[in-house]
């Protein structure tokens, strides 16, 4: 789960991590009153959208005075960045930057731990730095029970700064950011750029936070920050039904049990020249209720011209699955052609049950997909 920069900034503020003073606004008027209220002179107006590359897209502008700031806000509000509408901006003090750094905590799959990532190359995308000059990035794994003792925070800060006063400021910031990471079950806490101002202050100029979806059950406050877009709302609804759903925009609606098999199904549709409408993992079992809910979800997508059901019957046998499907489709009446492929335990018995129904039955995955593509 991702949140906006201004929400991250609020979490930083609360945790005592220094940020530039600023405020989120939804209109030019709000921007101007925030500009007055905060007593700003040179100010920056930043689009609040959940994607990177805002700067390149023109979503970050600086204004030297009230008029320029108003113009910047007017230009940014309402623009689209990577398909996302900018409906709010943050107006903030434009600090005088002496130097820029990169700092983050991230979950690292390989070391199977949280790692602290630091670089003196700040303000640019870290992936670029990693690709071009990997020697300029330091990674420090964190022992989960130990956390960040003073020495470790100082050692890390000393990677970024030569001046000991900055090291000591950095130490406190690092410990507070780690605390934030752990207390909110974040999977990423990124400050890019972390800057030193011309008057020697350390400031987190950006605040990017991702959270672990698996931990939201114990993070109600974090969960409440989530602002799903239309697609994400559908994904959430699906999740409430025990599904994993991602809209893809094609014409063949898929219903599969298991994430890996669902991905493979999408892949093969593409391989055979079709366009998958979605990723849909209906999970372990495949009782009629679930199938009905899943069909409703698929049919709510008006682009869907064919539905492909690919179920591996393991512990739940194929004949039981077939009976469930028949029950479900007795309830849902639809004209959309449905291809069903059942495989695994008792697959022959399952297929036999589907004989004489309006469903298109298939033996192999390839076979089923070919049929589905042909039916579009």
């Amino acid at each position, binding site marked *: 789960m991702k949140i906006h920069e201004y929400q991250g900034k609020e979490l930083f503020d609360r945790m005592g991590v220094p940020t530039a003073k600023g405020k989120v606004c939804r209109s030019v008027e709000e921007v101007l009153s925030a500009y007055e209220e905060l007593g700003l002179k040179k100010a920056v107006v930043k689009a609040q959208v959940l994607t990177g590359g805002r700067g390149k897209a023109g979503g970050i502008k600086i204004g030297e005075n009230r008029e320029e700031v108003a113009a910047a806000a007017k230009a940014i509000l309402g623009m689209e960045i990577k398909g996302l509408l900018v409906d709010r901006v943050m107006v903030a003090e434009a600090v005088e930057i002496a130097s820029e750094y990169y700092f983050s905590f991230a979950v690292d799959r390989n070391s199977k731990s949280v790692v602290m990532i630091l670089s003196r190359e700040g303000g640019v995308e870290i*992936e670029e730095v990693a690709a071009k000059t990997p020697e300029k990035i330091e990674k420090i794994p964190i022992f989960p029970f130990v956390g960040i003792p003073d020495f470790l925070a100082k050692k890390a800060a000393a990677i970024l700064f030569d001046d000991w006063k900055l090291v000591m400021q950095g130490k406190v910031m690092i410990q507070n950011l780690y605390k934030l990471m752990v207390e909110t079950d974040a999977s990423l806490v990124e400050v890019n750029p972390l800057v030193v101002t011309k008057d020697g202050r350390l400031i987190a100029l950006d605040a990017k936070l991702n959270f*672990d979806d698996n931990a939201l059950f*114990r993070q109600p406050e974090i969960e409440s920050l989530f602002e799903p877009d239309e697609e994400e709302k559908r994904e959430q609804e699906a999740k409430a039904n025990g599904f994993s759903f991602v809209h893809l925009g094609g014409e063949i609606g898929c219903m599969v049990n298991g994430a*890996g*098999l669902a991905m493979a199904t999408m892949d093969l549709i593409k391989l055979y020249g079709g366009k998958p409408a979605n990723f849909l993992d209906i999970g372990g079992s495949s009782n009629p209720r679930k199938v009905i809910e899943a069909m409703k979800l698929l049919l709510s997508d008006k682009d869907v011209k064919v539905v492909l059901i690919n179920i591996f019957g393991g512990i739940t046998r194929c004949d039981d699955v077939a009976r469930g499907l028949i029950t479900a489709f007795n309830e849902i009446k639809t004209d959309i052609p449905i291809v069903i492929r059942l495989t695994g335990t008792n697959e022959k018995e399952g297929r036999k049950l589907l004989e004489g129904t309006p469903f298109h039955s298939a033996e*192999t995955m*390839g076979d089923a997909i070919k049929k589905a593509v042909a039916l579009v």
Partner: protein
Amino acid sequence: MVQGITGRDGGFHASKMRDYGTRIVGGTSPGKGGTTHDGFNVYNTVVETVKETGADTTIIFVPAPFVKDAIMEAADGGIKLIIVITEGVPTLDFIAARHYATALGARIIGPNCPGLISPGKSLVGIMPGNIFTPGRTGVISRSGTLTYEVVYNLTLAGIGQSTAVGIGGDPVSGLYFIDLLQMFQGDPETDSIVMIGEIGGDAEERAAAYIKEHVTKPVFSFIAGQSAPADKRMGHAGAIISSGTGTAKEKIAALEAAGVTVLNEPADIPAKIKAVV
């Protein structure tokens, strides 16, 4: 032993495993110690179970919020192999529990995995045992039903499996590709290896580098998620292309460069194995 043996999933799969021939010595369910459940002895704690039964392997079915404690309890109790079936375990919980278990010399498979099976011998997991058949191909997979699909095709084609391991779909897991490639390479009962990967992370790329250096047995692979969009979680918490990395394309290229046969369709795997082994 089974942690969470009186739960719906724990109880169901304990019976299934027993039916397959696995020696299930009992399980835990705090507060229900001293009772029996479906013929299994129930204990309050792992340490008690180990003391009474000598269990050395556990399979965990407890709900996600309690998995951290369950893993730590297992390791503290002297369990050496911990298989975590539960889905939705908070990442920081797993990181901490794994660190603790590793320090105590225990190994973990999972979480969010289907477990492992040595066909004809034993099943410690939730896989449908009947689709497997004994043989000499090792299977490693990040996925559940996709594994079954592959294995089912193998079985139908007469290619048996030495051991199949589901390593789980979470971003941070216990034993992973490299650990298992190493085991299969050293296993005299395995002639060839099937490795089923998916988008997200760079474990397949790392595995490719390892295969190039250390694996002489033929490896066959399928990578799911070639058509997946960026920044979307495809079911598994770990299956996400982020910042342009973790794509199927990169993985396939790395594996092919390491001499691995990467197939476009799971159904094509058996024929390729037959051609080589």
